[in-house]
């Protein structure tokens, strides 16, 4: 799995198989009276073709290393999910505080004072959204 072009093709093949095999479970109908499964099946077949082409093509062109760094995306996604969970079970202010403090691990430097300032700013903006724009944010 050290070739970006190959990975690309494999990802596309995987997506096309997920959608294509699933669409076979819906009625396909025929072209004049298309069922719900026909169009997704057609598109995923084409996508499968493109994916296979990419895998074949990857054998002919120079290899390029995929450049995955999972640390930052993991931090960002965890802080998003944490925000959603905490906002549901506690309240959104706690969610904001968690998100700012957790997401800052991905920054170039970590500063508690800076995080507190950002939290204060964001909570103020959240109140402005709630009071001025009428968004129903579960702030407290």
């Amino acid at each position, binding site marked *: 799995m050290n070739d970006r072009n190959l990975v690309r093709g494999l990802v596309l093949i995987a997506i096309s198989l997920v959608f294509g095999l*699933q669409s076979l479970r819906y009625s396909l109908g025929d072209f*004049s009276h298309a069922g719900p499964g026909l169009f997704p099946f057609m598109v995923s077949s084409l996508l499968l073709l493109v994916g296979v082409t990419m895998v074949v093509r990857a054998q002919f062109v120079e290899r390029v290393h995929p450049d995955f760094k999972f640390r930052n995306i993991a931090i960002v996604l965890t802080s998003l999910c944490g925000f959603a969970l905490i906002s549901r079970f506690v309240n959104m202010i706690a969610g904001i505080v968690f998100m700012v403090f957790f997401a800052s691990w991905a920054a170039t430097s970590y500063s508690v004072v800076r995080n507190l300032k950002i939290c204060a700013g964001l909570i103020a903006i959240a109140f402005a959204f709630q009071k001025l724009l009428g968004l129903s944010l579960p702030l407290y």
Partner: protein
Amino acid sequence: MDVLHNLAFGFEHALTLQNLMFCAIGCTVGTLVGLLPGLGPLATISLLLPLTYSIPTGGALIMLAGIYYGAQYGDSVSAITMKIPHASSIVACIDGYQMTLKGKTGLALFTAGVSSFIGGTVAIVVLSFLAPSLGEVAFLFGPADYCALMLVGFVCVSFVTTGSLLNGIAMCMVGVLLGTIGTDVTSGAQRFTMDMPFLADGVGLVSVALGCFGIAEITKNLDNHEDRSPFNGKIHLIPTWAEFKRIIPSALRGSAIGSFLGILPGGGPVIAQFAAYAVDKKLSKYKHEIGTGAIEGVAGQAAADEAAARTSFIPLMSIGIPENAVMALMMAAFIIKGIQPGPNMISGHPDLFWGLVASMWIGNCFLLILNVPLVRYWLSVFKIPYNVLFPAILFFCCVGTYSVNNNLDDIFITATFGLMGYVFMRLEMDAAPLLLGFILGPMLEENFRRAMLLSRGSFIPFLTRPISGTLIGLIGLFIAWQLIAFVLQTRKASASRRIPPIAPEVGVAKE
């Protein structure tokens, strides 16, 4: 004189205090977005989409349009002063930054601002004359023609944004497949919902856009650890008369090129700038100076950029088919407001159409003020460190996603698409065609099924109808050209190197 009458009618709507305010907000936010890294017009429009629910229709559209063309103004500023290109200001980095090195930052900024104003004005004239007459043509379109037009759009956007037809088409198809999630309109069957009730309505557009553009972009910037040093030089804005005279011809050329390329499917600011720059290099009186910091190198591309951003509204508003990803989002905004863009929109909602056109010109004036005399204040935006900015952007993404349905579960979907967008970005696959495919997918399916129903299951009408036949012929030619180019290229490559290099085994176990 119909047009003048209509424009006067449009100004009546655009000049109300409320709409002026929305226009000003849109332009300001747009400029800010154009300046800041990590938030393109796509992410911003999708962020603000939920906020427009409570705003009247005309005001909402005026504001969203302002963000789009405002961002085109703003992004040349960062390119000129610090050589930071955004999505659509790659060309401004060449001559604009050279001018900064020569100490002519003020002149470059003035040129970019004034040229954008000229480009915008020309494009609005084109828009107000062409959109209504193109709307008449759209009545000739049948379902097969719409299908063919959307396919042309996919092919063009794929090629223009990613440079590789195969990658782009693949992303379009992934988008189309994602668009089929939810309830099938014709049969009522639930597709790909995995028995989860919140997927019955399909995946939210805002979740897809924010995940693929907002979250993925933030992570990319974090990965890069870019340290930006803010610009602290002096800015002398007012040019001499001789310098001013050099701006005009180049800006007019750029406006014409931009207006034309903006209308074509797949067209838009990026390709227009490159074309304008290339033409200036061939035709300008000062062509030997271009590349070393010439006024023409900034003027032409800035005008083309701005003109194309505005004429790309033409296909959306007259035919009802968006031609790039941002326009697809604008279409979503129209539909959320209960208006179907297309040939009936101009006659059915003349106040909206002409109000929007008139507001574009008012926005142009706002932007000229924001970007020329006030530009030095905007430069202080760069002093905000990214470490402060990105938690705030994350928060806006959360609020934007949540407020569509007041549902916290949507944030998980955004996070899922964030991961997907990140993987695609690391695989160097642009997500813009995905978004276009996602928005056009349901329309494509509907028109395809309708065309097949009419033709009783035969594909022949796609080729025999004059409009769809021509369009499909164009696609065929384009694909053939790509195939031939690829075969020639591999032959050349394999002739020049017999032994393929063996890739070293580093970076595999990064996970």
